[in-house]
């Protein structure tokens, strides 16, 4: 198993390098460059040219790439031309916010999805199962942003139970209990909104996995041994159906990234997703490419995590 993991790590590194090259090339291909949005177009072109020279924007691409990578590794992702501050600084707090949002979303997702999937799969074709599959169909059809808007409107504005923007109430000192509670309160509604949607695929997957496993021959073998139904389910069916779900975990992360762009924007939540959208609109390319890089790395590491989990839990991979 360790061999498998280490080998898998060897694949991850080139993946990340490739990702960085692609992002870099895309950034180069974008219309205009870092200066375009920043400088008054009426300025003397010679002055602009001078600026470009100074920023190294006229160097050959590989020199620029090397500079960029060198910077990135040292934590220097360039300057945001919009916010007039280093990208690293800009991203740091937001990354932490998004991390907590994602974590809470994942927790909500599994807390909801596993029981629902199990109920639905074990008692399939009962009214309870129909209700749950009904929910998954609606969740599948309703786009995330509509659900989120609905949530904001109902629980945020109508009932006023949750704040509808920001990541913490202003004026609180970090480290205090109030500060923590305020943070949590700001997280709950967006995390829940996102989880309502991400749950759907997990529920459906788990349900079909359980129904599938139920009909396998080895379940009959277990019954023929005299195993009571509870043991048949706990030892054979759930165990075998939950493994692929566990392995799915890492891949969830890519889904969360997409979701966070919408959710954070709708909830005016200062995280990576919102930053991404804002920067795209403002053509703040150094920020955009940094955010994409971080998202990309997160997705790659997620896939890595999935494979590692799978290699731990599935003997068919473990022995390789």
């Amino acid at each position, binding site marked *: 198993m360790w061999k498998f993991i280490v080998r898998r790590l060897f694949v991850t590194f080139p993946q990340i390098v490739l990702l960085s090259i692609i992002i870099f090339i895309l950034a180069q291909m974008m219309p205009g460059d870092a200066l375009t949005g920043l400088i008054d177009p009426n300025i003397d072109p010679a002055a602009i040219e001078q600026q470009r020279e100074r920023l190294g924007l006229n160097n050959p691409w590989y020199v620029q790439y090397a500079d960029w990578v060198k910077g990135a590794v040292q934590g220097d992702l360039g300057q945001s031309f919009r916010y007039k501050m280093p990208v690293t600084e800009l991203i740091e707090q937001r990354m932490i916010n998004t991390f907590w949002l994602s974590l809470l979303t994942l927790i909500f997702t599994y807390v909801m999805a596993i029981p629902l999937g199990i109920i639905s799969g074990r008692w399939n074709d009962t009214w309870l199962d129909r209700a749950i599959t009904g929910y998954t169909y609606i969740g599948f059809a309703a786009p995330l942003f509509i659900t989120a808007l609905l949530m904001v409107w109902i629980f945020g504005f109508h009932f006023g139970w949750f704040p509808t923007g920001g990541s913490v109430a202003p004026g609180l000192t970090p480290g205090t209990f109030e500060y923590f509670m305020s943070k949590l309160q700001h997280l709950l509604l967006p995390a829940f909104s996102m989880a309502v949607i991400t749950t759907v695929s997990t529920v459906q997957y788990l349900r079909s996995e359980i129904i599938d496993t139920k009909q396998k021959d080895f379940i*009959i073998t277990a019954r023929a041994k*005299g195993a009571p*139904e509870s043991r048949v389910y706990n030892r*054979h069916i759930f165990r075998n159906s939950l*493994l692929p779900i566990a392995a799915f975990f890492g891949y969830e992360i890519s889904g969360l990234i997409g979701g966070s762009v919408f959710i954070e924007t709708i909830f005016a939540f200062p995280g990576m997703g919102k930053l991404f959208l804002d920067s795209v609109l403002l053509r703040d390319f150094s920020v955009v490419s940094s955010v994409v890089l971080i998202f990309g790395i997160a997705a790659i590491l997620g896939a890595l995590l999935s494979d590692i989990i799978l290699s731990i839990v599935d003997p068919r991979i473990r022995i390789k």
Partner: protein
Amino acid sequence: MSNKLLEIKNLTTSFRIGDDYYAAVDDVTLTLNKNEVLGIVGESGSGKSALAFSIMRLHNRAKIEGSVLLNNQDIVNMPTTNLNKLRGDDMAMIFQDPLTALNPLMEIGEQIGETLLLHNPRMTQKQRKLRVIELLNLVGIPRPEYVFEQFPHELSGGMRQRVVIAIAIANDPELLIADEPTTALDVTIQAQILDLIRKLKNEMNAGIILITHDLGVVAEMADRVAVMYAGQIVEIAEVHTLFENPLHPYTKSLLNSVPTEGQDKLHVIQGIVPSLKNLPRKGCRFAARIPWIDASAHEENPVLHEVELGHFVRCTCHAHFYFSDESKEDEKNGIS
């Protein structure tokens, strides 16, 4: 004390296809004694496995009518908790398909150990492991300590089949249903497994139902043989009688299909087994496969007739049956 182990009366097992139920096992009545091997043979799809599953009540969604008595306890209407005490302990089954009968994510040792755990909760883990290794040895698996920790996909088909057998015999069952136990094995291992089953019978006084389409295996193992066709028993007799004096046209045809010395062309039964939905439900079910036999030879509602003590045959057509190619010979002979 009665010697009767299993008593099946008018057992009918039906599966739902569309909106209707179709009987895959149709009004089967059988008994099995202790220390007896009953062979069941029949065409693929004739309901052999369905019958075996009904005895253990392993069908998921099937309608079961009639009664199955194991040591006078009615299995069909028994509460599940009681049934679970019998399954794996008093009665056990070897499944037909070794490739799918084992949990792919569980170690072999744990899968065999589970059946011990369920029926001897007092056994310590260490004792269990010893017994599992003993069982693996019994079924002829080399290096049992190593196999103990392996997963099914690491074993060959033949080895998996032996694991399935080890699970079945783990608690020395009184009733062992073996559904094609050796089809996946080569003859030397087959001989070894059959020895094992024989031992279970002789030493433990167990009753064995041996389902197979290998008539050689039946000839070697069985005390009595039941022949099934299209869900029904068409003939049942003591093994010597069946092989020496088969009566039902299906039994005769079957025996004729087996390759034997100096035979050039093997006998083939005309037509195909109809699917469950299209089984003829009236008249002699085998009639369509022997169309050259006059319709009047068959009974309207064929029942089992006891032609001699313990030898039952369904329908009256056996008295008028001849093989079709023979008939031409006969005709020629008759003319000349």
